């Protein structure tokens, strides 16, 4: 009997050590500097609120801790879209003035691998900038740092909340440098292509209600004309 108990304690300790090693993995992704920071290209910098209740519209499957907004928006409960979220955001410039509209579709990615600190989300932005045109942004985001440094500490906290300072570049691909792929649609952006990076800044998170004080920002290199040879 004592052999069985010691074996069981050993197995539990082994699992605990593995989870702890995975969670505190010092080699996990910690990108905090935008790959576009060094480029001289003309850029479009926009920010948006990442607090669902402050967006124009936010919806998901209706079972997460985050409330949909407005209250009576259709929920995405059908099996094929149950892991999808939609946010419609007012995009603002550095002075806080509205400069565009952004619709973000996000779906959990099957490429997610906890063992390599990859909590991946496939997301697509459909953006309209009045007077300039429309854009499509395709990206892969990694939420590992966000989960580890904001969400989990909030759950562990006796007050069910987290307060602090979090900033991360969320974009991880699909471009080789870890940037998002931008395609120009109409207006000045027609026929053009470029790159983008999305980052997240958080100050407060509630384990009961979700994000409390959180902003996202998108840096888009103003698309360049696609050459005919491509």
């Amino acid at each position, binding site marked *: 009997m004592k052999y069985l108990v010691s074996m069981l304690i050993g197995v539990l300790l082994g699992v605990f050590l593995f989870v702890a090693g995975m969670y505190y993995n010092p080699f996990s992704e910690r990108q905090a500097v935008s790959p576009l920071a060094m480029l001289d290209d003309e850029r479009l910098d926009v920010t948006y609120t990442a607090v669902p209740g402050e967006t124009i519209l936010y919806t998901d499957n209706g079972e997460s801790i985050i409330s949909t907004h407005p209250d009576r928006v259709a929920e995405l409960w059908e*099996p*094929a879209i149950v892991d999808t979220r939609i946010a*419609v955001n007012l995009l603002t410039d550095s002075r806080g003035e509205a400069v565009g509209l952004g619709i973000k579709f996000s779906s959990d990615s*099957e490429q997610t691998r906890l063992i390599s600190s990859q909590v991946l989300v496939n997301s697509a932005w*459909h953006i*309209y900038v009045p007077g300039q045109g*429309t854009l499509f942004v395709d990206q892969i985001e990694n939420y590992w740092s966000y989960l580890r440094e904001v969400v989990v500490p909030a759950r562990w906290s006796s007050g069910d909340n987290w307060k602090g300072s979090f900033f991360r570049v969320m974009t991880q691909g699909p471009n080789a440098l870890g940037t998002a792929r931008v395609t120009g649609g*109409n207006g000045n952006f027609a026929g053009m292509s470029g790159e983008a990076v999305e980052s997240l800044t958080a100050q407060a998170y509630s384990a009961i209600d979700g994000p409390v004080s959180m902003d996202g920002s998108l840096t888009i290199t103003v698309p360049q004309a696609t050459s005919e040879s491509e």
Partner: protein
Amino acid sequence: MFKTFYFGIALGLLGAFVLTYSVPVVDLHREPSLISVRPNGGNAETYRIDLPRDRILVGLAGVDNALPAGLDWPEEALFGDLQTEMFKVRDRNDVVIGVASRLASASEAIGAFIEWTVHLPARGTVYLQMDVAPSAEGHRNGRLVAGTREFETLSGTVIEQYITDFKDEDLNVDGRIELITAFVGQLSDEE
């Protein structure tokens, strides 16, 4: 007994590793892709949107029937006549397989446009541009501007048509939008 304990630790580490490595954290639901092969090459697929039951959002400044109720849409001074709609998207069997956004504007500043983004979580996203003027047959023609994942290397055309004679009171349907895509893969250098 200590040997058993250490063996247990190794077993726990190995078991957790194998479990984490081999069991997918995310397993998206997939509907069979209802694709037909066109006689002149490429694949045709039809996406359906039943109105009004598949509407998620109707955003247009200065109208009273914005959807959903309680939507606080920005004023006209900002987005002008931009009409923003979002829908759930169904396949040919009327099963929901994704979501879509449709932006339309008659803006003089950048020119009139109509465009779609169709997001199918298990497959990818397509970005479509439509002709503003309908064809003689009454539908709109368009083209694939960009695609992701499964659609990344494809090019092709799309038809947007509104079917008014499709009604089903039980399902709260009094019209239907169909997006009929015809996509073809690019030939690689080796071919």
